[in-house]
């Protein structure tokens, strides 16, 4: 037996819908689409949350590192200030009133103080020992006439400080001043302060005058 509905189509659908919840059938792709969207949203949420947490942790760690670095930098600056300006730069030994001193200067000036101590104590020339060494190096044929600390001759050396000039003469012997100079150069005590030796010889009628210029570097 064939059932034939004579009702209009709208009425037919309405009738079917009335039989179910909404009274009509929802297309299948809609719940599927929403399901996929919800899953995607949840996945995005989960992933983004994880990523955000990871970034947050990294940021906290970086901030901690930065804080430590800032602390160390501050300590370094404080220490640098204690050390004072580098020797030979702004801020000066010669200006006790502090005029023109570098910005980083706490006033303790360890560098300058150590420099003063080094220059005058550690690199101190003990002249009695140097004179003794000159005496020991002097060949017997030579007779000295002068030992003098003088201003450095310009144009001959690039050194600094003063120049030691040893003058004398000899009557006999073959270039004893060269032996003298070699001995001076070979002496550890002399070489600790003077590295450059220049001999100057002037023959006279009955003797030969000479001078040995000893300069630093």
């Amino acid at each position, binding site marked *: 037996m064939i059932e034939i509905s004579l009702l209009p189509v709208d009425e037919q659908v309405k009738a079917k819908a009335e039989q179910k919840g909404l009274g009509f059938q929802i297309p299948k792709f809609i719940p599927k689409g929403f399901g996929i969207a919800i899953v995607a949203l949840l996945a995005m949420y989960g992933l983004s949350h994880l990523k955000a947490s990871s970034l947050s942790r990294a940021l906290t760690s970086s901030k901690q590192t930065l804080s430590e670095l800032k602390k160390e930098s501050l300590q370094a600056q404080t220490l640098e200030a204690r050390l004072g300006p580098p020797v030979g730069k702004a801020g000066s030994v010669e200006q006790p009133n502090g005029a023109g001193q570098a910005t980083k200067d706490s006033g303790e000036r360890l560098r*300058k103080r150590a420099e003063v101590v080094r220059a005058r104590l550690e690199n101190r020339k003990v002249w009695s020992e140097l004179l003794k060494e000159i*005496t020991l190096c002097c060949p017997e044929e030579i007779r000295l006439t002068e*030992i003098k600390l003088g201003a450095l001759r310009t144009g001959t050396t690039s050194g600094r400080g003063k120049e030691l000039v040893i003058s004398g003469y000899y009557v006999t012997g073959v270039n004893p001043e060269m032996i003298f100079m070699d001995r001076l150069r070979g002496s550890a005590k002399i070489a600790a302060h003077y590295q450059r030796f220049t001999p100057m010889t002037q023959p006279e009628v009955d003797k030969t005058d000479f001078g040995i210029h000893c300069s630093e570097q």
Partner: protein
Amino acid sequence: MNGEHRATKYTKEQAEMLALLVLMGCAVVVLTFLYLVKPNFAAMAESKAELKKTEAEIAQLSKAPVQLAKAKKESDALTATIEKGEKAILAGIAVDPPLTQVCVEVANKLGLKPAFGVQGSEVLLEFKERAADGRQVTRHYGEVSRTLDVLSTDFLSLCRFLSGVEKANEGITVAHLEIGNKSLGEADREAGKVTAKVKLSMLGIREGERATPPEVKAIEEFDERNPFGPAKVKGAGRGVQDITKVLEGIRVTAIWSNKLIMTVPGGGNIEATKGETFVVGKMKMRYVSGAGDTFVFEIAGSGKRYRLVTNWRGQVKKVEEEETK
């Protein structure tokens, strides 16, 4: 045909209802995104930006540990140098610095009479330091100087004077020195005398109680040849080679326990008793000892001793110089 079939599937109300449902679903999805996911993305972006900024700052400060270590190392080294130096120098030199006192004391010990000249004083460095009670105090490194002229003295005595002064305190040093004999008379020059202009300086800390004068230690001996004295000119005096020549010409002819008889160069016999001086040519000699074929003679005045080894005929075959003990 098919479209017609679909179009006829829903009533107008049903289609509207369906559209509303879809809209509501979309709204839920969008709201969920806005309230759940977007804040995370915002936080991520913010964190990323902040992280970038922090990393840039870290990169900027990355040298801080190295700088700190370097500064600490330098500070420790400098502090050690300063402490050692300040221990060596005198404090309180602003009031009556003892430099002249040291010079006078050493000069008196050596019988020198230097003429004292200009006295100078200079502030080398000003610096601040924490005192023991926490106050910040200003301190100064200073230097005092004194010039002196030695009119005529033996060069080796001058060396001894400088040695005595320099070794009294590490802070004392010779700032200028001129030694010469050109202004002296012939006799003084022959005696190895010199004149000297010396500038001595003393480093110290200006603050503190009056500086206690440093103790002048035993003054070093200088027994080297005076280089300002007469040179050993070959042929002008009796050199080592001449002495050897004379000694090699000796022939011992008779030996007793305390004396011997010998023939000397140029002819003549000499009787030499132990400990006594005799003259050979122009040379004064002393017979020191003798054992077997070996005899020791000393050149009077110089202190040099020579060991003479003779052969069976008493002729000297070997001359050796030995140091006087």
